[in-house]
């Protein structure tokens, strides 16, 4: 059912729902993850799980990861499967409207990046660039639940 959540980013509070993104991802999770044969590397969790990042600037990581998915990931995930492509479109467009909501925190200067999150984001980009772009994009899309689990 519709599950609106108040996400706390420091003093900034944003009402967002990941329900539709979750539903879209769950519908294609098995398909997408089956296209990622590399078990030994995770884009978001290597070397440390995203969950280990307890940094106060959660907003910074969330905001930059939204940019990462919108700018780098979704466009390289086109498949031969129309159903999968439509779900990816749904997720990508939902990311856009969530990015807009997160923008409120940026306007209130609540989305600053500390050293820990800057390091983590650098690591994620390094993991991404360590693979060819299609593999990296598909792997990142397959890890969307890692981001959602951490956000929620």
């Amino acid at each position, binding site marked *: *059912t519709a*599950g609106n*959540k108040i996400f706390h980013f420091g003093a900034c509070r944003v009402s967002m729902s*990941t*329900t539709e993104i*979750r*539903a879209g991802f*769950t519908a294609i999770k*098995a398909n997408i*993850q*089956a296209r990622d044969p590399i*078990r*030994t*590397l*995770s884009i978001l*969790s*290597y070397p440390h*799980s995203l*969950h*280990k990042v307890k940094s106060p600037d959660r907003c910074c990581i969330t905001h930059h990861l939204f940019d990462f998915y919108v700018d780098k990931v979704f466009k390289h995930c086109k498949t031969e499967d129309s159903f999968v492509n439509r779900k990816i479109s749904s997720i990508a467009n939902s990311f856009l409207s969530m990015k807009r909501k997160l923008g409120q925190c940026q306007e209130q200067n609540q989305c600053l990046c500390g050293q820990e999150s800057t390091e983590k984001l650098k690591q994620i980009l390094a993991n991404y660039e360590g693979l060819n772009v299609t593999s990296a994009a598909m792997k990142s899309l*397959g890890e969307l*639940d*890692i981001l*959602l*689990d951490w956000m*929620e």
Partner: protein
Amino acid sequence: SGELYCSLLNPRNVRFESVNMKNVLHWSAPEGTGNEVLYKVKYSVYGVGKWIRKPECKNINRTWCDLSSETSDYEEQYYASVKAFLNGMFSDWVETTRFNPLTDTKIDPPMVSVSSTDKSISITLTAPEKWKRSPEEESISLLQVYPGLQYNVSVLNKKTKKRWFFSISNHTLVVPWLEPGTAYCVSAQIHVSAPLLDSDFSKEHCIATLKDK
């Protein structure tokens, strides 16, 4: 000369079955075989380089292996794999899909206890606990794992056959102003909205309000 190598058909339907994060690997025997086939199991943490053998599931002829201990960190995701062998013949390693304990577990219904006065019933609900290695280990309620956990409670008046629903976040509910000397049956379900997880409804617990004094 080439080594003589005979292959065995693969184990089938290799998957995790998880309830309250008790994560058990299950599979079916290769087609046309029975319990004469032996198996070995390995698992890996997604994103970490190595496969790890599960010694307690080496040379077994059952078709399940409890990996709860190895997969208890629900902030990680996992793969597991099974290989069958018989009289020198081997199958391939057959893997599960990626297993996420947080979203891929099934939650048991809550425990329900009911008491009554002449005009009211009191319902107490207890969320199931996360699987733990031993009774001595500290218990973790699924309420701690899923902070947004809620209960849907159904109260059935056995006389009028009318059913009411309540949706509550805390674990107690008092329904006052009921009919004396009437049987009411209560069952409850756990609802988690993110990730979306619903338990089944518990079996019904019936109790009668006391007769009018």
